[in-house]
């Protein structure tokens, strides 16, 4: 069913590719979109293809459900992941690899304009640059970034396969096409998502992973969705783009082959005899005749996000922009699993591998980067950086299911919802225990008759009736730590409290309100066991 049926191009109602004339793609690899290729027919239903086409306009999309691969190539991944703290990125920056024989791994625009190329010897690069920043390329950090992005891309499909060695992520999107309104729209959305996070992706779309990889690396605009168009798209490309050892390419050149098309025309059997099984297998994978199973990426349980800076930062204001990038990654990642979080942990990484650890908790779980950024800005603005910071790590201690995210029409206006993050802002600046509520309890003694709780949860109250302590001790307003009081003058009796004996803390008190000499209305009691007077608080 999924095997495409070969039919002549005339029947497909398409312009035949201009094979007799010089094909535009022969001139070079970066070609403008060729509409005859990009809108290739995707119908594979043999019954339909036997009929003459109703109109020349055919559905350019493949049947949803058929495999379709998106390869996202991130050639500047390590560079993109670095935060340029300099406001003017005119200073050349080089990532150097291989300490034994230092070479340029990647260079920013300023350095590339001066002639620096990846793979160049570091000494040569330094010779042409004026005061460049040179940083070490860290493969492990780059791998982590790739996995973070793979987690972000899980929002487009459940089959994501990061290829860390090649700085590439493959996505099987055949079943996502209908949701995202077609291959072109999906590709644009994947690109926008990554660019928003500060990365520069190159995306290739094809019916096989191998071809998608190739097209992504070449920034080829075609989207070959069936075997024929794929074949025509690949045919004019030079052999050097194939993932083959240089010796093999050399050997193929030696027998006069230049383009992939030349290779495709050769009989498979002879190729196998001459070059072994590797070459025909590659061709079969490219065209989809041999399936290429790819593992599925599983995101970590508790996501974490990293960013490194190109220079050390000693002002908290400069952390805002990189933090925003991290929070956007967080938002995108949480969107995948429809998660939210109530708490975030931010580590400010220092040069000596130490870190300053900050946590921020808000009363309502959320995922929006804007909201979190506002809270973090408040927290960071009050922080004195002890040592310069050279990177950030943001971790989510616990993921929460999204549940009802909307501040609904029917939410009670009782503070159980914190619609604008107002209480969270207060807590971010003043500290977590600076915003309190008090809930009445059934404890018989006034000093135990309430418990402090945060703004998040509030226990169900024991009925509407007065609590035991309140019944005997009256409706005083303020509580103080107990302190001995002088015997009062004229006073109003409130009631007698007897309790606590079951807990070994026998208390018998007579409560009263008594104005003192300064005019305060004191809330006092006489301990019936000792006869002592105690000040419990204030009435007014």
């Amino acid at each position, binding site marked *: 069913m999924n095997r495409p049926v070969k039919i002549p191009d005339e029947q497909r109602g398409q312009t035949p590719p201009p094979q007799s004339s010089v094909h535009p793609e022969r001139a070079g690899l970066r070609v403008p979109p060729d509409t005859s290729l990009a809108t290739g027919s995707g119908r594979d239903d043999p019954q339909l293809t036997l009929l003459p086409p109703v109109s020349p306009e055919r559905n350019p999309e493949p049947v949803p459900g058929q495999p379709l691969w998106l390869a996202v190539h991130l050639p500047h991944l390590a560079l993109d992941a670095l935060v340029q703290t300099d406001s003017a990125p005119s200073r050349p920056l080089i990532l150097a690899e291989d300490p034994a024989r230092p070479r340029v791994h990647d260079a920013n625009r300023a350095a590339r304009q001066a002639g620096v190329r990846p793979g160049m010897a570091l000494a040569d690069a330094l010779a042409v640059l004026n005061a460049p920043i040179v940083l070490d390329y860290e493969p492990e950090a780059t791998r982590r970034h790739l996995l973070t992005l793979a987690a972000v891309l899980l929002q487009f499909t459940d089959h994501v396969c990061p290829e860390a060695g090649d700085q590439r992520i493959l996505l099987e999107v055949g079943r996502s096409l209908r949701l995202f309104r077609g291959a072109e729209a999906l590709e644009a959305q994947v690109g926008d998502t990554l660019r928003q996070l500060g990365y520069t992706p190159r995306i290739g779309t094809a019916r096989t992973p191998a071809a998608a990889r190739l097209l992504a690396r070449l920034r080829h605009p075609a989207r070959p969705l069936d075997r024929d168009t794929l074949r025509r798209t690949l045919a004019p490309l030079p052999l050097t783009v194939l993932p083959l050892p240089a010796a093999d390419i050399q050997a193929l050149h030696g027998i006069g082959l230049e383009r992939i098309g030349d290779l495709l025309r050769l009989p498979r059997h002879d190729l196998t005899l001459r070059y072994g099984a590797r070459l025909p297998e590659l061709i079969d994978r490219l065209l989809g005749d041999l399936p290429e199973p790819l593992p599925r990426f599983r995101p970590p349980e508790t996501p974490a996000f990293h960013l490194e800076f190109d220079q050390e930062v000693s002002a908290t204001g400069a952390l805002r922009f990189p933090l925003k990038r991290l929070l956007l990654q967080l938002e995108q990642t949480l969107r995948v699993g429809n998660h939210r979080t109530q708490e975030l942990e931010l580590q400010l990484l220092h040069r000596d591998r130490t870190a300053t650890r900050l946590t921020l908790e808000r009363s309502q779980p959320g995922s929006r980067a804007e909201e979190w950024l506002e809270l973090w800005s408040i927290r960071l603005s009050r922080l004195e950086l002890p040592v310069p910071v050279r990177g950030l790590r943001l971790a989510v201690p616990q993921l929460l299911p999204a549940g009802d995210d909307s501040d609904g029409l029917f939410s009670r206006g009782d503070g159980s919802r914190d619609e604008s993050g107002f209480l969270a802002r207060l807590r971010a600046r003043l500290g977590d225990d600076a915003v309190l509520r*008090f809930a009445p309890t059934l404890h018989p003694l006034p000093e135990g008759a309430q418990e402090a709780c945060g703004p998040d949860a509030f226990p169900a109250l024991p009925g509407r009736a007065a609590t035991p302590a309140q019944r005997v001790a009256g409706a005083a307003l303020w509580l103080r730590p107990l302190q001995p009081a002088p015997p009062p003058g004229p006073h109003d009796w409130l009631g007698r409290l007897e309790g606590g004996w079951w807990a070994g803390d026998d208390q018998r008190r007579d409560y009263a309100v008594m104005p003192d000499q300064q005019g305060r209305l004191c809330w006092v009691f006489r301990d019936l066991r000792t006869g002592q007077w105690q000040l419990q608080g204030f009435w007014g």
Partner: protein
Amino acid sequence: MSALEELLAHPGLWRGRGTGLPATVPTRPTGFAHLDRTLRGGWPRGQLTELIGAPFGSGETRMLLPVLATCSRERRRVMLVTPPATPWIPGWRQLGVDPEGVFVIRATSEEDIIWSCEQILRHPKTGVLLAWLQGSRSAPLRRLRLAAGSGDACAFLYRPPAVASQASPAHLRIRWQADGDRLRLEVIKFTGGPIPAGQPVVIPRDAR
């Protein structure tokens, strides 16, 4: 001529011999009829009210309980900023204030206190702000007045007696003092009109 009338109708313009502000400042009833009369309707909303006096605990919070209970019934919050003692919530509840809507904010520096009050006043769910300001400076109150104007909460600022002689941007300033079983209130500034006659107003301070 019409230009002049237009000008006179402007709420920001007060004519000295007139009847005071056209009743544009919304109020909440205080719960005491004679106090309502003196305050032209009740406690002003969206404005600062200074309550100047000492010592803490003389009944200056209890006199606000009627307005706190009203807010609580409307499910709006009562925000206490740096109170000198812990509220005893069973008592508040008995007087009609829902504990779930009473928040205590703790802060130490003046800057934090003013900032918190600003945030609170700008929030639409705030019904009443009670803030105990120890500092004697009146300048930060300007920020609070702006914040109060963007909402419609009643903003009560408790201040020490020493500030009574200072200028202040507050809409209403009241000096209070305990007097036996009553609380004596004296209006010392009331924007938009003369100091009301019939001073001081005396209210009972031991409402059970």
